[in-house]
């Protein structure tokens, strides 16, 4: 059991009519690791999570959570995992304590064991003092904490967190990221989906990058960055139509890839120091001025751009 992968995904497929949402996704997460699924909206992250939670039945392939197959042992899977959905999946008319008690019952807890665990979770999420207030009156960050607390009630071995930081203030976001690390420290395995590359970069032992329903890269942060060959990304804006300069910059020696997004030109280059003077010269020749330059060392965004030709936020 100790050497068993916490999550083992084997060529999952899921289509909704003509839309092939997940196409042959495979990956493996060791026990006690944080694995981030990174990808833009519509990449297939949530569909994958839904299949791993037994909410959706895969068209093909299988996955095992702590050795339990999602196809043949749904109850085993459900007992091993806690799910933190992207939405605040709570009853706002009920207090935090009532919510936790209800969800605890749904996870099979009863009596004094339930009461004890609810108190423990209230301590973990730091809401014991305000446990008897209705969730509807909480701030967004507090709701997020209760949302996470629900998934911890039955002490699962694996936790799925589906974009838990969407739409919250920086302080609450920081609290949540800290709590994810705390869960890992307690020995839990965390499957974390996000489209914020900084979060994936900060938290993860391993990162899987998804796009159009496929896992296009998978590895540690360093392994993924090596995929872009240590390339630096330069984002520039000019005082004219970007397409006019794009061809000239693409032909500059050292520029390996160029694209335009939202009036901004993104270049992947081997060495920014060598390339930048040539970019300015080319702009001058075209009677254009460069109005901003943003140099970014290799990161996951660059990896995504390298692999897909698009920025992650798209």
């Amino acid at each position, binding site marked *: 059991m100790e050497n068993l992968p916490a999550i083992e995904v084997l060529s999952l497929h899921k289509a909704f009519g003509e839309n092939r949402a997940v196409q042959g996704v495979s990956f493996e997460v060791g026990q006690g690791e944080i694995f981030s699924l990174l990808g833009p909206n519509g990449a297939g992250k949530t569909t994958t999570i*839904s299949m791993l939670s037994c909410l959706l039945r895969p068209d093909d392939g299988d996955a095992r959570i702590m050795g339990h197959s999602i196809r043949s042992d749904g109850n085993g899977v459900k007992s091993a995992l806690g799910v933190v959905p992207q939405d605040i999946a709570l*009853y706002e008319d009920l207090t935090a304590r009532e919510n936790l008690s209800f969800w605890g019952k749904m996870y099979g807890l009863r009596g004094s064991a339930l009461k004890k665990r609810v108190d423990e979770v209230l301590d973990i999420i730091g809401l014991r003092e305000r446990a008897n207030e209705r969730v509807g009156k909480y701030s967004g960050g507090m709701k997020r904490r209760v949302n996470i607390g629900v998934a911890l009630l039955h002490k699962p071995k694996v936790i799925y967190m589906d974009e838990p930081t969407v739409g919250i203030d920086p302080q609450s976001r920081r609290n949540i990221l800290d709590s994810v690390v705390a869960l890992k420290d307690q020995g839990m395995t965390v499957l974390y989906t996000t489209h914020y590359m900084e979060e994936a970069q900060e938290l993860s032992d391993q990162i899987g990058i998804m796009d159009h329903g496929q896992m296009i890269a998978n590895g540690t942060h360093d392994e993924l960055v090596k995929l872009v060959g240590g390339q630096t990304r330069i984002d520039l804006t000019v005082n004219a139509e970007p397409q006019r300069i794009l061809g000239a910059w693409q032909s500059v020696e050292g520029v390996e890839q160029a694209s335009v997004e939202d009036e901004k030109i993104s270049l992947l280059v081997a060495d920014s120091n060598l390339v930048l003077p040539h970019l300015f010269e080319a702009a001058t020749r075209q009677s254009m001025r460069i109005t901003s330059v943003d140099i970014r060392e290799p990161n996951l965004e660059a990896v995504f751009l390298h692999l897909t030709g698009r920025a992650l936020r798209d």
Partner: protein
Amino acid sequence: MIRILDIAFKDLLQLMRDFKTFMFLLLMPILFTFLFGYAFGGFGGNSDSRLPVGYLSQDNHWVTDSLHDLFSESDLISLRENVFLSPADLEQQVANGDLAAAIIVPHGYGRDVLKNRTDLRLIVIADTSSTAWTSVEAELLRITSRLDGAVRTATIIERIDSERMPFHYAFEKTLDAWNDPPIAVTETKSPAVAKVSDSGAALAHTAPGMILQFAIAGLLTAAQIIVTERKTRTLQRLLTTSTRRIDVALGHFLAIFLLLFTQFAILIVFGQVILKVDYFRVPEATVLVAVSAALCISALGLLIGFAAQSEEQAITFSLIPMFVFSGLGGAWVPLEVTGATFHAIGHVSPVAWGMDGFENIVARGLGFESVLLPSAALLGYALLFFSLAVWRLYASEEK
């Protein structure tokens, strides 16, 4: 099983914290019962729900007085006497529907009855195509036969032993004997009683009508809980626990049922105690209809909850059945007055069956057997709605 109870308890807790629930549960139906009751008959009259029959006597004979007494004691007809009205006036009132019929006793009628002659007969004015007439006719025949029988019996007895049993004594004894007949006959009230403009009959219709209508209206709140549960993905989260879909459906169903049955119970007691609508005449029948109707409407609420994609849709999906089922099913206007075709079409609505069940008890004076068919129909609808709701739940969560 325990999870079903947990979900039901949670739903009830949510519902009880919503003021809208209280409004739809109690205040609105009570208010509208009064409003519709007033509109149909007001609250100034007595609670006599017998068919109104005009009575004009042109004969002063003591036999005619006995006939009048028999009519006055009737459980089915209520004499409306006004010495200032002419036969033509009575005819007009019957034509207007103000009276179910009118009886005119011609001069010399009592004397002819006594002499066993049939030269003079009672004059009856009625719309013979109406259902009310059937009931009035039967009652007239019963009473006149009783009078005629008493005269004949007294005549025979007087011939046998006039000293010990003089005619008048034998006549009175014979009439009295009918008050304790050897067989008990249950009389049905005509459906046309609903046309009668008195408060008892009006409330006997509007009180059940409002109960059923506002039970459907109350679904709005219950359905919104289910819609919100799905919208916020709380339902999906429930399904990541070992709770089964059928447990979720049954839990919500139980909560709505308990809510509606409580509403029914409160409004039935209110109707009985305050409005004097006699639900407790056959209590087991009332309970059966209330349970069947609550199960049916709860299943409809479940279906609305699982079918609606948004709160706005839930409102629409709740209001449509409320108006269509209530209007079509006779919650506002009795189906009996709408004609045979509409009466038949109306029974597509489960409300019509609920109305039949309640009205059989409180308006038509029928027994327990009379609610079995309406209850079976309501339970059939409950099964249909519940099956569709569960199918919808399974289908929508697989997308």
